[in-house]
C-alpha cells in the first residue's frame, strides 16, 4: 500500500465542546492581526499576508484534492502583471485593478486546469510547470510586461476613490480584509459538500467515480478556485509593492509556495499561512547575511520531505489527535 502525500491533513482535532475554544482562538488571532502593524513593519506583514493567501490557495489543491501544481506562479504573477498594467496604464482604481488581475487568473486557471487534469500525479506537476514556464516566456517577451524591468512604480491610488492607500496602515487593513476574505472562501469550500467530494477524490478517485461523481469537473472547479485566489494574492502583492516583475512568474516562485505549504502542513487550514510567515521571515533574515538563500530553502525542502512531512500545523494537530484518542 502506497502511503499518500495528503496524509498530513488527517487526524484533525475538532469535536464538539471545542467550538467555544475555537471562537476564542479566532478572536485572539484576529486581534493579533489587527494590532500587528503597530508592532511590526507593515510592508513585511503585508508581504506575509499576500504569500499566506497564495499558499492557502495552493493548499486547496495539494491538501484537499491531492493535485500538486508546480505552476502556481503563473496565476500569482499573471494577475500581478494585469493588475499593475490596468492600474498604471489604464488608470483604473485599485479595487478594479485587483479584480481584473484576479479575473485573468481565473481564466488562466480554467485553461490550465482543462489541459492539466488529463493527467495525474507526477505528470500533472510537470504539465503545470511547463505551462507556467510558457507564461514566464510570454511575460519576458510581450510588450506590455516591460521585459526584464517588469512594471514598476504602480500607483497605489485611492480605494473606491476614497481611502488613500499610500498610507501604509490603510494599505495594511485593505490587505488584511482581502486575506480574510480569501481565507474565508477557502474555509467555506473545504467544509462544504463540495469540499467533502474533493477529499473523497483525494483519498480514492476511482471510488468517487464509481459513486457517480464527475471527478474531472470537481477537480477543474477546485483548480479554478485555487488559481483565482492565487491571482487575488498576486494582484494584491503588485499593489502593495507597486511592482509586477519576472520574479513573480518564475518556477522558483512556484517552488516557494510548495515549500510554504509543505513546511506549514499540507491539508491543514492554517498550515500554509504559518509556512508563508516562516519562509518570508527567513528570506528577510537571510537577505542580511552572506548565506545563499536558495541553498537554505533547498535544505529545508529536503528535511521536510524526509522527516517532517506533516508540517508544523499538521504535526501539532497529529499530536493533539493522538492524545485525544
Amino acid at each position, binding site marked *: 500500500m502506497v502511503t499518500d502525500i495528503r496524509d498530513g491533513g488527517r487526524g484533525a482535532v475538532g469535536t464538539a465542546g471545542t467550538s467555544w475554544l475555537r471562537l476564542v482562538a479566532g478572536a485572539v488571532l484576529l486581534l493579533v492581526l489587527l494590532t500587528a502593524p503597530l508592532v511590526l513593519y507593515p510592508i513585511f506583514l503585508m508581504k506575509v499576508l499576500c504569500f499566506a493567501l497564495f499558499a492557502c490557495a495552493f493548499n486547496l489543491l495539494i491538501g484537499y484534492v491531492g493535485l500538486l501544481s508546480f505552476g502556481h506562479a503563473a496565476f500569482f504573477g499573471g494577475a500581478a502583471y494585469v493588475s499593475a498594467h490596468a492600474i498604471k496604464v489604464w488608470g483604473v482604481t485599485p479595487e478594479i485593478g485587483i479584480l481584473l488581475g484576479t479575473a485573468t487568473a481565473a481564466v488562466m486557471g480554467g485553461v490550465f486546469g482543462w489541459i492539466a487534469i488529463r493527467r495525474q500525479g507526477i505528470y500533472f506537476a510537470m504539465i503545470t510547470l511547463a505551462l507556467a514556464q510558457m507564461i514566464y516566456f510570454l511575460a519576458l*517577451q510581450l510588450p506590455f510586461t516591460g521585459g526584464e524591468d517588469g512594471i514598476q512604480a504602480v500607483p497605489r491610488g485611492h480605494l473606491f476613490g476614497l481611502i488613500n492607500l499610500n498610507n501604509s496602515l490603510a494599505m495594511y487593513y485593505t490587505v488584511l480584509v482581502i486575506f480574510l476574505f480569501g481565507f474565508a472562501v477557502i474555509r467555506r469550500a473545504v467544509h462544504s459538500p463540495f469540499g467533502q467530494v474533493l477529499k473523497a477524490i483525494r483519498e480514492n478517485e476511482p471510488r468517487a467515480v464509481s459513486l457517480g461523481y464527475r471527478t474531472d469537473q470537481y477537480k477543474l472547479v477546485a483548480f479554478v478556485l485555487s488559481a483565482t485566489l492565487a491571482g487575488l494574492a498576486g494582484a494584491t502583492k503588485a499593489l502593495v509593492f507597486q511592482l509586477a516583475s519576472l520574479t513573480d512568474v518564475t518556477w522558483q516562485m512556484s517552488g516557494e509556495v510548495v515549500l510554504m505549504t509543505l513546511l506549514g502542513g499540507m491539508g491543514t487550514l492554517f498550515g500554509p499561512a504559518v509556512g508563508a510567515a516562516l519562509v518570508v521571515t527567513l528570506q528577510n533574515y537571510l537577505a542580511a547575511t552572506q548565506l545563499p538563500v536558495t541553498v537554505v530553502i533547498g535544505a529545508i525542502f529536503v528535511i521536510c520531505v524526509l522527516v517532517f512531512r506533516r508540517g508544523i500545523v499538521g504535526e501539532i494537530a497529529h499530536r493533539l489527535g493522538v492524545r485525544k484518542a
Partner: protein
Amino acid sequence: MFAEIFGIPPQALFGQLLLGLINGSFYALLSLGLAVIFGMLNVINFAHGALYMLGAFVAWLLLNRLGIGYWPALLLAPLIVGAIGIVLEKALLRWLYKLDHLYGLLLTFGLALIIEGMFRHWYGVSGMPYPIPPALQGGQNLGFMFLPNYRAWVVVASLAVCLATWYAIERTRLGAYLRAATENPVLVQAFGINVPLMITLTYGFGVALAGFAGVLAAPIYSVNPLMGANLIIVVFAVVVIGGMGSILGAIVTGFGLGLLEGLTKVFYPEASNIVIFVVMIVVLLIKPAGLFGRER
C-alpha cells in the same frame, strides 16, 4: 549557390536546423535519463538539470584545477556525477519509495536548489568558457552550409550513447532484468536478483547520462550554474510529449522537438521559446498518454 527555401536563405535554415539538432541531442540524453530513472524508481528526477550542470562544472574544474582535458573528462565527469547520484540515492531517495511519488519530485527539487545555489554562491551567474578540444576545432564546408566539427561530434556522440543505452536495455540480459524489475520488482527479487542494487545503479546511470550531456555542452554553452535550471523544464515537456513508456520514444521525441524548435527559430523566432510547450498542449489534448506512452 542555392535558391532560397520558403524565402529563407539555406545557410540560415540549415544553421538553425543544426542548432536544433544540437538542442535535440541534449533533450534526448536528458529525457532518456529521466525515463530510465522513472521506470525503475518512479521518481521524476528534478535534480537532473542540476546534475547536468554539475557534469559541465566537473569538466571545467578538471581542466582548470587539475589540467585534465576534454577526452578524459568525457569519461570521468559522468562517473563522478554518477557516483554523487548513487550517494544521493542511498542516503536520501530510498527512504521515499513507499510514499507517494510526488515526494520524490519534491525531494529532488530541493536537491536541485541546493546544488545550483551552491555553485551560484561560489561562481556567480556569469558563464565560464570551456575550450573546444584541439582535435575538434575548425569545421567542414559542406557547400550549402558550414559545419563546425565540434557540433557534428555532439550530435554523433549523443546519438551513439542514446542508441547504446537503448540496446543495453532492450537487447541484453541485464536490460531484461531491468525491464522485468520495472514491471514487477517483488517477483524479480524473488528470483534472486538484487533489486535495491539495481535501483541504485539505475539512478547512478541515469544521472551519469546527465553528467555526460553536461560535458558535451560545456564547449558550446558557457559553463554556468543556471544552465540546467531552465533546460530541465523543457525536458519535462519533452517527457510529457513522448510519454515515458519507451526508451526509443524518448530519443526520437528529444531529437524531433529540437529540430522543430530550430525550424521555429527560422520561421517565427518569437515563438521559439514556447513552441515545445505548445506542442505539449496539443499532444495532451489529442493523446494524453503522450506519443509513445502508456497510461499507468
